[in-house]
């Protein structure tokens, strides 16, 4: 088998250290405080962000890393893209070792992250920023122009190309980050939560481009981190579920869902979901796992998912418990297993809590 990525016992640890207050205005005395924190740092505790991870991604595969916030997905991506040096193990990217040949690895990969950490220039327009990146990667001007036109259409920023980043919305800035990633063609493309903060229509268009153009037409190997299970199910050939730095399961979406077996999954939409209710349901004899996620923070309305081998006996008890805790059931259904159910089975917790 020809692998694009092989992760071999990769481990990354961080020391937990008190954050320096940003822009706090300590002036010239700041370094004294910094030295103080440095001493504190020496005694700080260690956190294992990526814990002995082994993984193989085939060439041309669209691979998902699914897990809750803090699972270690971004840290793993940063190690694979040479931005972070692992503490143990290594990874082979397109045949090159990230520890021994980081410069070669950099030339095979492309990286798109979410949020602020890709530094755009606020003085340049959207188009000028993209031209800047195209130049940085040595794209010929005619190709750059053509590519920029194409990606601006994909991310729906054509009518904003003459605006500076400070004058467009945060969602548009996120689309600009994605556009920058789509400019460059490399064998391997890492995408860290690319659709976070996007409206549903933009997210759908971008997923379509990833699936059809980058993966389908160009056969790029894509590793995409997400905590949206629908995104993983819709896009990925295979998914690795991460929790607390470890890969807890890996396979195609169907293979992962088959892990649930013939267990019943009950989905109850209700108001007033609280920790007490979830604890109470979790302690019921026939309930294997329970998780919830809130859709409306004001009314605590959301969905409770219950795994059980005996839905007939459990359902009345759960409904009674909801009523007792001041809830109001809006809808009850027997659900098909999802990747969230797999995560619940493996970790005893919901993907989004």
């Amino acid at each position: 088998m020809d692998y694009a990525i092989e992760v071999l016992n990769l481990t990354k640890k961080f020391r937990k250290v008190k954050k320096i207050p940003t822009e706090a205005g300590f002036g010239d005395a700041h370094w004294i405080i910094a030295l103080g924190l440095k001493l504190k740092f020496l005694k700080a505790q260690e956190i294992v962000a990526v814990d002995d991870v082994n993984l193989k991604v085939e060439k041309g595969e669209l691979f998902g890393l699914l897990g809750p916030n803090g699972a270690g997905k971004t840290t793993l991506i940063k190690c694979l893209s040479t931005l972070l040096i692992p503490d143990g193990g290594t990874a082979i990217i397109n045949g090159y070792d990230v520890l021994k040949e980081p410069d070669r690895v950099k030339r095979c990969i492309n990286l798109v992250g979410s949020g602020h950490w890709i530094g755009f220039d606020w003085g340049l327009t959207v188009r000028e920023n993209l031209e800047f990146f195209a130049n940085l990667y040595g794209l010929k001007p005619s190709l750059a122009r053509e590519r920029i036109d194409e990606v601006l259409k994909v991310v729906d920023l054509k009518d904003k190309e003459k605006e500076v980043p400070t004058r467009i919305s945060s969602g548009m800035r996120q689309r600009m980050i994605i556009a920058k990633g789509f400019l460059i063609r490399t064998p391997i493309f890492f995408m860290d939560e690319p659709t976070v903060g996007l409206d549903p229509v933009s997210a759908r268009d971008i997923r379509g481009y990833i699936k059809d153009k980058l993966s389908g037409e160009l056969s790029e190997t894509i590793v995409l981190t997400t905590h949206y299970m629908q995104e993983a199910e819709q896009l990925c050939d295979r998914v690795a579920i991460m929790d607390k730095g470890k890969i807890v399961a890996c396979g195609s979406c169907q293979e992962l869902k088959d892990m649930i077996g013939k267990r019943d999954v009950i989905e109850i939409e209700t108001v007033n979901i609280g920790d007490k209710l979830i604890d109470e349901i979790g302690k019921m004899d026939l309930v294997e796992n329970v998780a919830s996620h809130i859709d409306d923070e004001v009314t605590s309305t959301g969905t409770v998912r219950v795994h059980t081998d005996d839905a007939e006996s459990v359902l009345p008890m759960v409904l009674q418990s909801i009523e007792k805790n001041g809830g109001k059931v809006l809808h009850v259904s027997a659900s098909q297993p999802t990747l969230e159910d797999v995560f619940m089975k493996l970790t005893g917790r919901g993907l989004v809590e």
Partner: protein
Amino acid sequence: MSKQGFEVKKADWKTVLWAVWANFRKAIMGWTFFLPNFIMDLAGIIVNIGIFYFLATFTASAMGPHLARYGGNYAAYIVLGIAFNAYLGASLNSFYNSYCMGYWGCAFELYATSPVGIKAFMAGSILFDYFISTISVLFYILFGVSVFSIGIGKGSDFGVALLAMLLGMAAVIGIGLIAASTFTLLNAKQWSNPVTWFVNFLVGLVSGVYFPLDVLPEWARTIGYLLPQTYAYDAARIALLSGASITNPLIVKDLSELILFSFVTIPAGVFFFKRSLRKAEKDGTLSRWS
């Protein structure tokens, strides 16, 4: 194993130079974008010259006996001191400032994964610091010569002065690299660090920027001799104000000291700076969003 014609090409010198230029241009755009600040920066240079000129006028008689080797004119002495200090100050501070800009502006991760690397980003912003220093120096010299009639011109050895400044810059760049490394090694991230703070403090007091070393007590002079700036200022002033040539024993001594300093500070600076980058890659602190 990689697909043919699919990799990003290794950056050629044209791309690297373009990236340096683009960052330099961006820094200039940022500097001139806020007009009031831009005007205040320029006005500050003129105000500084005025203040030091009047200070020089009042203290000229007291300083006179100590200025024999520099032509005896305290106004000329002080204007040149400030001008030279602008260049050596840029050499000392620009690496750390550039590192701060890369980190706080979230540019390092972007450049680190690009073919040109973070050095292209840093080179652009460092070049900008030297550009600003050049403007300051031109103002200082122009005002010094035209308004305050300082005696530069006839008999001045500009070549030796330039050599002294270049050697001084080389020696101080090594210290500047050590200063930049404190960003990660000592976690000094808030636009100030112990190395430049301490060196700038000493330079102001004992390197001869504002007054000749002769007026200082013995112990203070000894500290001054531990700074490369002391030798650079001394040689450049002697060359410009007394017309001393490269064969003058005072110049030979100063330039030799600067070469020795460079042999120590540059390797040390490169060593610490590489260590700090390695640490940033280990800690995940190339970016403020780690």
